[in-house]
């Protein structure tokens, strides 16, 4: 009888965690280059009972995965902004190692190094930081990643792709960390679009719909647990009468 309570609890915990994921997606609705997250559920069968039908199913949120679809591009007119058209990632040198990002809001730091939003250098094809000469007035970034200052080609911005991008780990700050053994491959099919920024791929309405679903589910699970408890209580009252 108590199983009902525990099954309900497992479902409620999963739903709350799912709402946390929705909340994070909505919070990052306007974060350029952000990738939304999704939750996968699975039923865990608890062994026990004599017949297979006696086994009890619990809910487990098996995993979250990153929705890797591209976001819409918006024009910013800023010559340092690039959007990536394709499944590639920019690579940046973080203190913890090379990280990958879809956030193309680039700028020049005080030394003339091309950096991302975090201030980490953006790497070229040889995995070196890109330094733009301080006296150059106009820079342009070609769709193939060639960066030129005043018409002279300086470097090619590295664009990498992964065979299994789902294994990339989000570390916050819009960075992705490759898992052990993952290899970054060149992404010749990904074009860089200058003067545009890729928006977050979160669709607000979809998230709100999901959120409503979650609250209703939560209510019905609570109702189910409640009803179960009522049943138990009345059984105790009725069967336990001493007279």
């Amino acid at each position: 009888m108590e199983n009902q309570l525990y099954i309900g609890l497992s479902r409620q915990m999963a739903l709350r965690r799912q709402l946390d994921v929705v909340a994070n997606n909505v919070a990052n609705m306007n974060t350029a280059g952000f990738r939304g997250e999704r939750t996968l559920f699975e039923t865990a069968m608890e062994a026990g009972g004599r017949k297979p039908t006696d086994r009890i199913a619990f809910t487990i949120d098996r995993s979250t995965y990153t929705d890797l679809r591209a976001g819409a591009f918006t024009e910013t007119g800023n010559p340092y902004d690039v959007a990536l058209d394709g499944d590639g990632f920019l690579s940046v040198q973080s203190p913890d190692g090379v990280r990958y990002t879809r956030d193309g809001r680039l700028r020049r730091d005080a030394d003339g190094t091309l950096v991302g939003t975090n201030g980490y250098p953006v790497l070229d094809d040889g995995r070196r930081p890109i330094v733009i000469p301080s006296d150059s007035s106009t820079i342009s970034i070609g769709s193939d990643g060639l960066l030129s200052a005043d018409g002279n080609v300086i470097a090619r911005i590295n664009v990498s792709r992964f065979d299994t991008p789902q294994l990339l780990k989000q570390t916050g700050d819009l960075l992705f960390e490759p898992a052990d053994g993952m290899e970054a491959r060149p992404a010749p099919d990904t074009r860089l679009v200058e003067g545009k920024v890729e928006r977050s791929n979160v669709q607000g309405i979809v998230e709100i719909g999901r959120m409503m679903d979650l609250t209703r589910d939560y209510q019905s699970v609570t109702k189910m647990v409640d009803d179960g408890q009522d049943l138990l209580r009345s059984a105790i009252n009725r069967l336990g009468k001493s007279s």
Partner: protein
Amino acid sequence: MRVLSIASTGMMAQQMNVEVISNNIANINTTAFKRSRAEFQDLMYQAERRQGSQSTDSGTIIPTGVEVGLGVRPTSVNRINTTGNLTSTGNELDLAIEGRGYFNVTQPGGETVYTRAGSFKLSPEGSIVTADGFAIAPGITVPQGTREVVINRSGEVLAYVDGQAQPVNQGQLAMTVFVNDSGLEALGDNLFRATPASGEPQDGLAGQAGFGTIRQKYLESSNVNVVQEITELISAQRAYEMNAKVIEAGDQMASTMTNMR
């Protein structure tokens, strides 16, 4: 509950976004104003079930774990330094910089600050000053009885004085460029100060390599694009509303729980 704090980071971020947008719109007619953009990043992720760990029941490796992101944070308000449109004013002390560079303004304390807003005036002594009366470096004075002031593309100030056929060269305006314009500190009043993030000021003259040229009788408009700002405003407002809805949902879940007997 985590959901409440996550959604509140979202509301705070969008509020800041709206503030930055409203400042852009407020300065839409400010000479040489550069629009700013609030930039956001996702916060850290909490791993509830780490990917790559062994699953206890079947012994397999978990390919993707359960990660819950903790919201959003503003990382920077980035000034976008594209050149605004040049508008003709007909006023001979209105100067626009076509390309990179800043005019040097000497403050009363002697500190040099920088501006691109070239709506200059003459002080009672005849020197070229900003609208607030600060001197433009190097100090350039226009002699009494000047009919016309001509400032050429490289910033040389030529005065046509009554009774003289040839113009008198009064000096050349100084100009400064920075490696990272976005790193300058905005002081208000169209003035900027150099910071470690902007790089050392590189002094020079208009028209040199890497420096812009000066256009007399023109002013640089702000680079604010009203359509873009309104679009961003609507998007920020919607995002704010949705975050508020998420808080409501989280609260509802919490109250459902409390009402359980």
